[in-house]
């Protein structure tokens, strides 16, 4: 490691220019008497331009700048789960201990607890030939997650000795014939994607328990989704619902430039949540990164990379990882802010010209892959976008939509009617159903894709009919079209609306979703029969059992009761024929 000293020449907000050193691009340097952490982002003659991850007021020209020889890296190993980090992997609870409730500066903290002792169980043995990514042994990191200790990329050889036992993350657990010592902790530069063998096409849905997402616009494991929406339309609630309920094994949640109180809510709520798949605390599978809007902007820029690198590390163990980034617009704004301090020529709306390529590079780190050890792992990335004024023609939304395969469009109008999740069913889309349909047929029901098509067709028809209704009123429509409107209303109010804050309604498993959708279609069919048999529309739609069926979804054990409720409804609908 070559250490060299330079001095500060200029300071402008988070951007500092140094003279007298010749670092590499993206090398980490220590700035000023307090040793603030910064990263080299531009070399310009004998000047090096540094973005500093901490507040710079009070720093003067002439103070020292010291090279570290390393690029911005994260520490990977047992102890990542249940943690909450800032944008550069400093654990927030430890920062609180060293500097109190306000974040001051110049404090360094390790991402992993270097002292903590883990119980390492070797799975490889002496004499084994190992290559990068090979699993050497396991550590029960949390109640539900087994941490697989891997050979770091770039290392291979024959194991000379390996032993099970109690170690901290820096102690050697395995020695190779050539003398290389491997500890449980490895470091990885955040801006470089971790290697894998090849990418596969996704074929399994990421089940989230959110009806509109799973049923109409599914995301595949290893897929990418974007959620753009104006403020107040429910981006954060949707992201949090996904973090809570999606059936990924590991969740990485990046709060990037968002509200402090919101992060606190996540932090206080998550430890009490139970994973419906394992029955254990959800926190056991979660790593969080919180860089709120008033924390230094350069660290916000880094937070997204820190998060995805941690996600890749778990993917390499063969896990399905879901990563939520809330919000990528704040990340883009951090890039814009730094770019403007660098006096770079701006692209659209002041964003740097490399915005869309950075977005693409980030989302491209998602995917289902064959890992170096031959396992199958995936990262699904769900990025929230906060377009100014809710207008998605802006650069961040457009740059995102060009890449992601699923678009969940949030709608201010729906939010205003308190239709939540406020995802617009007419303009949202998912490109995954064709590759997932086989999975649905095998695991849920053979006609699942057809039911989905029918439901979304009904919603389409409704939107066309609504245009007529706006002009002439619904009474002017023929009875069968009035029935279609009723059915569509049922889809919206009973199926698409889902209360994230209701204990029962917050999660519906895929089987139940399918049953509910079938119930709606069955209502349509029975009503058609009844109407043909002379019943009045008014009577048919107002049968009491129908509102029982609809309200029933808020009660425990709905999955067992729904068939009975459906029968009641159908009987009552048939009875309306005799009434006339």
């Amino acid at each position: 490691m070559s250490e060299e000293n330079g001095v500060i020449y200029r300071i402008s907000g988070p951007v500092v220019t140094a003279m007298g050193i010749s670092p590499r691009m993206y090398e980490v340097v220590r700035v000023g008497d307090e040793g603030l952490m910064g990263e080299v982002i531009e070399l310009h003659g004998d000047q090096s331009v540094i973005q500093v991850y901490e507040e710079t007021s009070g720093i003067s020209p002439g103070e020292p700048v010291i090279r570290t020889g390393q690029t911005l890296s994260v520490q990977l190993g047992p102890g990542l789960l249940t943690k909450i980090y800032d944008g550069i992997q400093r654990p927030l609870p430890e920062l609180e201990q060293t500097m109190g409730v306000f974040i001051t500066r110049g404090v360094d903290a390790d991402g992993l607890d270097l002292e903590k002792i883990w119980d390492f169980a070797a799975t490889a043995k002496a004499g084994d030939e190992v290559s990068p990514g090979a699993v050497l042994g396991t550590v029960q990191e949390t109640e539900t997650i087994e941490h697989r200790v891997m050979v770091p990329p770039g290392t291979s050889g024959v194991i000379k000795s390996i032993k099970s036992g109690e170690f901290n993350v820096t102690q050697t657990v395995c020695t190779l014939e050539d003398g290389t010592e491997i500890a449980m902790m490895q470091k990885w530069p955040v801006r470089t994607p971790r290697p894998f063998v090849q990418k596969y096409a996704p074929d399994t849905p990421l089940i989230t328990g959110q009806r509109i997402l799973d049923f109409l616009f599914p995301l595949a494991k290893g897929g990418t989704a974007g959620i753009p929406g104006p403020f107040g339309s429910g981006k954060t609630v949707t992201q949090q619902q996904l973090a809570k309920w999606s059936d990924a094994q590991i969740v990485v949640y990046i709060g990037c430039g968002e509200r402090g109180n919101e992060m606190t809510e996540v932090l206080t709520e998550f430890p009490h949540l139970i994973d419906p798949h394992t029955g254990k605390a959800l926190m056991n599978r979660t790593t969080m990164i919180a860089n709120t809007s008033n924390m230094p902007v350069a660290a916000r820029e880094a937070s997204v990379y820190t998060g995805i690198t941690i996600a890749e590390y778990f993917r390499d163990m063969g896990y399905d990882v879901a990563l939520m980034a809330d919000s990528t617009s704040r990340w883009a704004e951090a890039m814009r802010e730094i770019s403007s301090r660098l006096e770079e020529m701006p692209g659209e709306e002041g964003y740097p010209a490399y915005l869309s390529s950075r977005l693409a590079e980030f989302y491209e780190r998602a995917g289902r892959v064959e890992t170096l050890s031959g396992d199958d792992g995936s990262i699904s990335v769900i990025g929230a976008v906060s377009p100014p004024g809710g207008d998605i023609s802006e650069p961040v939304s457009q740059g995102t939509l060009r890449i992601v395969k699923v678009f969940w469009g949030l709608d201010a109008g729906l939010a205003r009617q308190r239709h939540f999740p406020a995802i617009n069913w007419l303009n949202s889309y998912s490109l995954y159903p064709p590759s997932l349909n086989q999975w649905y047929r095998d695991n849920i029901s053979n006609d699942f894709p057809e039911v989905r098509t029918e439901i979304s067709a009904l919603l389409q028809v409704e939107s066309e009919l609504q245009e007529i209704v706006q002009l002439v009123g619904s009474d002017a429509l023929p009875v069968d079209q009035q029935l279609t409107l009723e059915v569509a209303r049922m889809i919206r109010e009973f199926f698409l609306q889902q209360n994230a804050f209701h204990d029962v309604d917050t999660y519906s498993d895929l089987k139940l979703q399918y049953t509910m959708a079938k119930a709606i279609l069955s209502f349509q069919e029975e009503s058609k029969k009844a109407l043909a048999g002379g019943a009045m529309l008014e009577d048919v739609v107002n049968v009491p059992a129908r509102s029982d069926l609809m309200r029933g979804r808020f009660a425990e054990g709905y999955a067992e009761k729904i068939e009975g409720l459906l029968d009641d409804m159908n009987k009552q609908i048939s009875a309306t024929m005799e009434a006339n």
Partner: protein
Amino acid sequence: MSGKEYRTITDVKGPLVFLNKTEPVAFGEIVQLRLSDGTMKNGQVLDTSDDQVIVQVFEGTASVDRQTGVKFMGDVFKLPVSTDLIGRILDGAGRPRDGGPEIVADEMADIIGAAINPYSRESPEAFIQTGISAIDACTSLVRGQKLPIFSAAGLPHNDIALQIARQAKLVGSDDDFVVVFCAMGITAEEYNFFVHDLERTGALENACLFVNLADDPAVERLITPRLALTAAEYLAFEHDYHVLVIYTDMTNYCESLRQIGAAREEVPGRRGYPGYMYTDLAMLYERAGLVKGKKGSITQFPILTMPGDDITHPIPDLSGYITEGQIVISRELHQKGIYPPINVLPSLSRLMNAGIGPDKTREDHKSVSDQLYAAYAQGRELRGLVAIVGEDALNERDLQLLKFSDIFENQFLRQGRDEDRSIGEGTLDYAWELLSNIDTKYLVRLDQKWIDKYHPTEKKE
């Protein structure tokens, strides 16, 4: 730091002064300028290098010349804080404006304010009753929240802010709020209105005012809210006060920000506002909240006037992305003569769910609020339809909803400027009474158990 006075000004541009040949000057350092006629001005370092230092002058650069003496004070901007701040009126730079003595500092506090570690925050969940039904029922405020009022020119946002300041209280607690009021570029008339009202109710003794009026230097507005928040933080986190910060008008603040950006020839973002405006606003708004181990709290009520009533304008837009909701004032309701003219549909409180429910307000609060929204939203939509096809084309359900939207505006929203409604009887029971104008079968957002318990005509005793 040396007490040297430099006379090396090279350029003066708008509120900025450029000078060279200085010894190392720290970023953010406070600067004193002595004009040739002896007047003093204050400023702050915006950019510093070996060759050039850029200083932003708070009082404007009028009369600054190349002979002006510039002295670097060797420290960043600090406010003298003590509990004596309560009951005082200060100017936009923190000097007494009420003719009283200088503040005797208990401590000098850095006005930039460090970010609160998200891990050290406490979740805000104590419901604040404002006595205004529209807010209490539909956009409930909790202690530690930042909830801006999105208004526009000619609307009664000041009355609403004052009514909130007057009536805000925690249910079942006698903790009073200390009001920190921060005026940025408002007119003397508006200022007098605030002061008179605070005087009238005796609240002035329990308030601390930072005042930058329309004819005060525009650049000073960039520090006024930081002073106010520094005072608020000191009172809340060192002396356990519950502080309500009202600042008005954020639009003037953002204009000043744009002015500095333009003078520095920065690359502008949307509508000429600087690209870092989001971060800058966040540095103010995020200074609200509760902190573990401290009893006090900071609740913020920023007021901003939306240029051209446009909610997508960068100022309300970026604010909305940082604050925990917004209260939107509607010109339409105001013109119908309804006070407070709060349009609940685009209004929102993100922390509402944490602050309401059993033991906090009432178990049926969430359901009632959802139902009010849904019914009112649909009713309003039907108004458009009725204008085209007439009421005859509506079915029974739509007719009821249409009627409800008028009842909601005229009875639920409308209340007196001094009318203080309690959350239970005054607001929620009243909401049930009004909702009973709609057939229960159309009230799909209400859990049956709440209908059984609270519906005025259908409840089962």
